[in-house]
């Protein structure tokens, strides 16, 4: 399990624009670098990030080798209903991580 830091508001008013910020620990190895033994290190990156709001996809991003290690992603979501925000990161070597945050909308 990779360490993640997620900043999402716990409460919001309906119609508010919420800023969601996420950070995840990941090496994002490009697949172009040589290791200490001179051999190319195999690519190991996160390929896709998605945020679902009550199971509805509200934001997603494709990630590529040029993105730095420990990628930080920030985006905005309109507060619609109380429920759960689910964050998933998927990548090479079967990397898959899911985190969630609950939000109360009044």
């Amino acid at each position, binding site marked *: 399990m990779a*360490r993640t*830091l997620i900043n999402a508001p716990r409460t919001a008013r309906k119609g508010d624009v919420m800023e969601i*910020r996420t*950070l995840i*620990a990941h090496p*994002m190895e490009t697949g172009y670098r040589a290791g200490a033994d001179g051999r190319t290190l195999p690519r190991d990156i996160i390929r896709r990030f998605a945020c679902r709001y009550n199971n509805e996809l509200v934001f997603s991003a494709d990630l590529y080798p040029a993105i*730095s*290690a420990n990628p930080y992603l920030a985006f905005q979501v309109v507060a619609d209903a109380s429920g759960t925000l689910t964050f998933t990161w998927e990548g090479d070597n079967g990397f898959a991580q899911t985190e969630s945050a609950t939000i109360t909308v009044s």
Partner: protein
Amino acid sequence: MIASRAALALIAALLAWAGAAGAQDPAKPRRSGFDTMSPRIQAMQRDDLQNPGMLWVADGEVLWNKIFGISFSCAHCHGDAKQSMRGVAARYPDWDPVEQRPVDLSQRINLCRTRHQLVMPLPPESVELLDLEAYVANQSRGMPIAPSSARELEAPRERGRALYTQRIGQLNLSCALCHDQRPGHVLAGATIPEGHINGYPTYRLEWQGLGSLQRRLRNCLSGVRAEPPPFNSTEMVELELYLAQRSAGMTIETPAVRP
């Protein structure tokens, strides 16, 4: 007679100049590496959610409360690190009366492991050691560096100062030549910082990860094409000891972000 007196005065003036050349200019306020980096990287450091170093700090908090083997967690003895570790990183490296030598913060953590937790020390630059060091040092964020005043540290600190001003490597440079005399100038495309140690362990964009002060020192030493001393060698700790004195009073930024 007058001529020889004038010559003596000239020699004295030259000696004073040569002595002063090794030190920082006391008239200028010291500047943290933070002040000379781009606003974007500054913003990255200021915001705990953008600062990737906080990933290590968060893992360190978990390790602080983790029981190792059959013995204690750090928290068993030290309690809440937010109180017990506040200001601790500010005084390291400190004198260890049992070992009879100065030890830096990561060595102190390992001594706690071998003495009290009865587990193997963590290897230098290992993720777990950096986690714990970052977590402990983060508790002193915002406090001034306050080096220990133990008398035993005077001699090793002086040896550290000598190492700092000694020309070494194929490029024949000393630390002082760049970091005391030419900060703000450009070396190989990068701005030379004043070389303060107020943000370690530091997240370096070049490393794409968190690293210790010793790792940074070894970088610089191989940069001047000198043979870097091994991790935790006496020279390394003595150099850290002098650098802490040199940066005394500056605000701790751990985990800092640097280009």
